[in-house]
């Protein structure tokens, strides 16, 4: 039997997921030793047709990062699904929609308008926007369709496992690869990361008061952040309570609150709704009997862009998936 065949592919993503594979550093050599990489457009010169000629299930594992935003990404995801025994949604965008998923607050026409016409650095006097088909000198040029709605990978094809994070941390990737190579696979649908909330592993947890109460909301740029103290205790929104651990507390250690890229734990269906729930329950709780409704409203209005904050990485995966038109 030959070495297991791996494929890597990217859809609507920033490239960070590709980089994190390289962050395996010398360990990547071990991986390359044990597997055959049959497809990895960012690094190797294989083409779509090389995949098309493969038999069903010929690829052992396809790691697909990025959300699904164009028809081409959808086609590629479907093609890889056909050829791969296992599909791993790699990274927050594939799992939850991620940052590209924030586009679901708009529709395509708004986005094209902004990007191709209104951005101050764009000079486009004729107002040209990309078309799917253009005829020129008798030739027909085509582009993939740009969808109105960004989807997660599992809203497009069945997904076997998820590697969360923006990007997934190298140790979790290595773990996942080793688990796959050993054939010790968990139940389908498992997120290959710890299933505890980030607060559980956060070094600042000890400074989180027993009874949290936020008197006033502060944004990170408005205050000097105490590098030891729980962000919530400082009035800064931190999504640690509704976010899965396993990232190595990357942001916390850089003195920034968690934005929730690891997604929710397995018990939560909608990360943003849970964030609404916990933030609201600790906001102004100290004087809750005394506050008038107007005062409560004022406090709540201090959360700028609540939907964008609570669904920073998970809008397409949320119950509502997008803004309604």
């Amino acid at each position, binding site marked *: 039997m030959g070495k297991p065949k791996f494929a890597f592919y990217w859809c609507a993503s920033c490239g960070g997921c590709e980089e994190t594979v390289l962050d395996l550093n010398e360990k990547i050599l071990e991986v390359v030793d044990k597997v055959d990489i049959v497809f990895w457009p960012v690094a190797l010169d294989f083409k779509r047709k090389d995949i098309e000629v493969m038999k069903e299930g010929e690829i052992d594992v396809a790691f697909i990062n990025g959300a699904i935003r164009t028809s081409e990404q959808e086609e590629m995801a479907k093609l890889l699904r056909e050829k791969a025994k296992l599909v791993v949604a790699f990274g927050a965008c594939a799992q939850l929609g991620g940052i590209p998923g924030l586009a679901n607050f708009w529709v395509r026409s708004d986005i094209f308008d902004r990007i191709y016409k209104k951005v101050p650095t764009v000079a486009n006097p004729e107002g040209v926007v990309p078309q799917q088909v253009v005829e020129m000198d008798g030739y027909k040029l085509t582009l993939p369709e740009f969808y109105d709605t960004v989807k997660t990978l599992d809203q497009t094809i069945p997904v076997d496992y998820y590697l969360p994070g923006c990007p997934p941390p190298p140790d979790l990737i290595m773990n996942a690869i080793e688990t796959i190579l050993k054939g010790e696979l968990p139940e389908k649908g498992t997120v290959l990361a710890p299933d505890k909330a980030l607060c559980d592993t956060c070094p600042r947890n000890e400074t989180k008061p027993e009874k949290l109460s936020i008197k006033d909301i502060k944004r990170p740029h408005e205050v000097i952040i105490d590098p030891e103290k729980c962000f919530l205790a400082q009035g800064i929104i931190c999504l640690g309570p509704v976010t899965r651990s396993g990232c190595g507390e990357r942001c916390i250690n850089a003195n920034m609150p968690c934005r929730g890229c690891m997604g929710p734990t397995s018990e939560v269906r909608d990360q943003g709704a849970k964030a609404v729930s916990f933030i609201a329950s600790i906001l102004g709780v100290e004087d809750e009997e005394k506050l008038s409704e107007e005062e409560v409203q004022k406090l709540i209005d201090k959360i700028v862009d609540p939907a964008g904050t609570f669904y920073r990485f998970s809008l397409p995966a949320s119950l509502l998936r997008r*803004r309604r038109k």
Partner: protein
Amino acid sequence: MEGFEPKIVAFCCKWCSYAAADLAGTSRLKIKPNFVVIRTMCSSRVDPEFILQAFLNGADGVLVAGCHPGDCHYVNGNYKTLRRVMLLKKVLEQLGIDPRRLRLEWIAASESRKFVVTIRKFVDELKQLGPLRLEAGDDNGSNG
């Protein structure tokens, strides 16, 4: 909107608002039939997820009803409810759902009439707003 009858999901806490709804029934008060009641122990048990799920399952409006401030059977649950509903309204607005589709009312066990009026007003308001029709939003259709 001719002939449109809105559907309301009414989350009512067991100790006050559910009792009020019950009393409205046993007192044979006339009430609009546009709602289904889901009883929770306290209004603060109503997770924002439940509300979103109700909209997704076809509700045109969601009512959260609990004991008056200071009267919650669990002392302070309803203060949390107030803040959750307020915050969720903002999120709904950003997601293109009219925040008036989510309504919070304090209805004591004796206030059966208030329950009836609340439902009537809510039905009228939802008739103005029209059907919600959430299903259409998650396709990839190129209607941009």
